[in-house]
């Protein structure tokens, strides 16, 4: 009897796997094979045109990335981290405040939709709208500054303000999705805790810092990790708003440099090596974030 049941289970498992095969096939074709191919490419020199011209160069591409004076380490990776930290911090703190407030407002769905709208707008359109806003000669922001008697700010043309200007756009863009997740997290916190605390005489700040924030940790962790990973991978805003990461390399980030190395310079090996370095960095940062939050106790409430 047991043998028959075991056979039946095996048969069911096999059928299950068979039904999963198209998904596995799709995954292998569009993720696993390209992943392994790019890992292989990172040890080669290839112009991206003819597979027969791939040349094995060992660790040369990685050595080139980490050589002294390499622009990849400074300023490109530095910019990537500044951009990721900047956008995450900006969007996270604003989203935290906004989500707390709108969960206490009437028409919550309307406010959430309003904040989420930029997220569903194409990033190219957003980049171009902000380009107009930042324009030093006829942009709205500079018009206002001039009306206030202040100097024109060359937001994207001045290396000292260019990256910060893009971070503001990236941060603004990220608010909507963070608000969505955080407000869902806030709604999932049972009211009983707050009521019990209020009976004990807890004030608004005590409620927020002692109950809401600790119980919101799983949502915060999710928002921080996904936003940070997104920030490290992002390059569209730099591409749209500066075209090439300029002035100089002041807004150049890892993703943009990879794209240029592969499609502009025909250095697919270097681009692949950059991708794997970035992968290792993202992986390490994610593990670190997970460890930090687990120590704080995010498992359940």
């Amino acid at each position, binding site marked *: 009897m047991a043998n028959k049941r075991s056979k039946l289970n095996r048969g069911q498992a096999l059928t299950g796997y068979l039904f999963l095969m198209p998904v596995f096939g799709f995954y292998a074709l569009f993720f696993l094979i390209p992943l392994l191919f790019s890992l292989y490419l990172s040890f080669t020199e290839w112009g991206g*045109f003819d597979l027969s011209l791939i040349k094995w160069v060992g660790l040369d591409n990685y050595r080139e990335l980490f050589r002294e004076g390499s622009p990849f380490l400074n300023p490109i990776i530095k910019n990537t981290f500044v951009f990721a930290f900047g956008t995450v911090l900006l969007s996270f703190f604003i989203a935290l405040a906004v989500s707390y407030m709108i969960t206490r407002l009437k028409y919550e769905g309307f406010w959430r939709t309003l904040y989420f709208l930029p997220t569903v707008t194409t990033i190219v359109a957003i980049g171009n709208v902000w380009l107009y806003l930042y324009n030093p000669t006829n942009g709205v922001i500079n018009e206002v500054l001039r009306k206030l008697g202040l100097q024109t700010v060359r937001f994207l043309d001045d290396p000292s303000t260019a990256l910060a200007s893009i971070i503001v756009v990236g941060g603004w863009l990220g608010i909507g999705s963070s608000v969505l997740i955080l407000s869902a997290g806030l709604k999932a916190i049972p009211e009983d805790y707050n009521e019990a605390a209020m009976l004990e005489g807890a004030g608004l700040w005590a409620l927020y810092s002692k109950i809401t924030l600790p119980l919101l940790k799983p949502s915060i962790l999710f928002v921080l990790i996904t936003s940070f990973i997104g920030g490290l991978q992002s390059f569209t805003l730099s591409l749209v708003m500066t075209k090439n990461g300029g002035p100089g390399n002041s807004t150049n980030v890892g993703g943009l440099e990879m794209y*240029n190395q592969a499609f502009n310079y025909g250095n697919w090996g270097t681009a692949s090596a950059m991708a794997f370095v970035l992968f290792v960095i993202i992986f390490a940062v994610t593990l670190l974030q997970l460890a930090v939050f687990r120590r704080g106790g995010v498992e359940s409430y």
Partner: protein
Amino acid sequence: MNRLVARSVSLMTVSALAVGMAACSSDAGKGKSSGVVTLTLLSHYAGPQEEQLKPYIDQWNKENPNIQVKLEPVDFGELLKTISAKQTAGKVADIMHVYSMWGGQLGKSKVLADPPADVVEDIKSNYPEAAVKGSSIGGKVYGYPTEVQAYALFYNKKLLKDAGYDNPPRTWDEMYSMAKKMTKKDASGKIEVQGFGFNRGYASIVDQPFLSLLATAGGTLLSDDMKKAQLDSDTAKKTLEYTAKFYTDGISDLSISVGKSFPAEQTAMTIQAGWWAGTLAGTMKDLYANVGTAPIPSPDGQTKGSLAYTWMWGVNSKSKNQKEAWAFLNWFNTKPIKDGLTPEANFLLDAFNSVSSRKTDLNAQKLKDKLASDTVLKTFTDALQYAKPEPNPAAGAEIQDILYKQIESVWSGQTTAQQALPLAQKDIQAKLAAD
């Protein structure tokens, strides 16, 4: 049960393979159906230029019902990336318009097909040496030279006149002092009219005017054999410092787009290639009469210098229709169809107010008349005689970007010419060594 499993496995395997085949299929063998060959032509002739190219393509398509040409225009900034992405994905274009600077990179990856012997012979005997060099990679011809362009000074006669100048500057010092005098600012210090400005936006539009100025001082980017970078010279330092002075002294503003401000008569002088005259004529309408051109000023006012770059029509080495592609290119570049001019010559004249470099076109009465009457065109045709050809090493695009980023760093005040040039020299030398 076993039969069911076997059927399921077969069905799913076939489905997965079908998805895979669909995703990985190549366009290289496509383009032929019922005896009609369809050639795709990838170029940066987009927008108004596409409209001006189209009548000639339509004429070919009408006269050759079995070889149809389909235009695939993309912006200049996206052309190399598009070629690269399409080639890698197997979606190759049969005919490509290629900037000579990319020649080394494309040649190294064997993207361009060898032309037939008669095409090579025709090119060698009907185009000037600079044009043949521009369409060659490592001394081997790969296609028909098209836009052979040199750089010169564009100036606004009215703005110069208003400032008391009847003639354009001849020396660097004159250009600087005239630009300073012509620059106008509002009460807040915002520049309303800049006396001189460089174009910005991408590598070649910044590098080429800089290298043209460098040429007037006797400098070059690379040695003739393209093995050594030449940016460690005093000439390079002097040139970069000279260009940066326009920004540091408030004569030019990095935020001002010369592409918009010159036609709006808010920039008095700039350095650009000959094709820009056609764009200005279309944008400025009647105000185009105020546009003048002159050789680029030099340090001593005597030496003439400029940079010349070339484009070429080439055929993709992966194209299955190479014979038909060369037949079309042969017609487009060599057969007179109107006023004794080839389709290419007519197109260049219509779209850019530029002259074809093909001897038969140059001998046509229409071009002779045009050259005799159009002073702007003459400036650039003369500049081709003394301009240095732009080098096209295998890492050409990357080298161009290295220089561009260092120039922008200096112009934006991030660094100085003294600090930037050794970095550019070192990085460019490393790229040349890797080739």
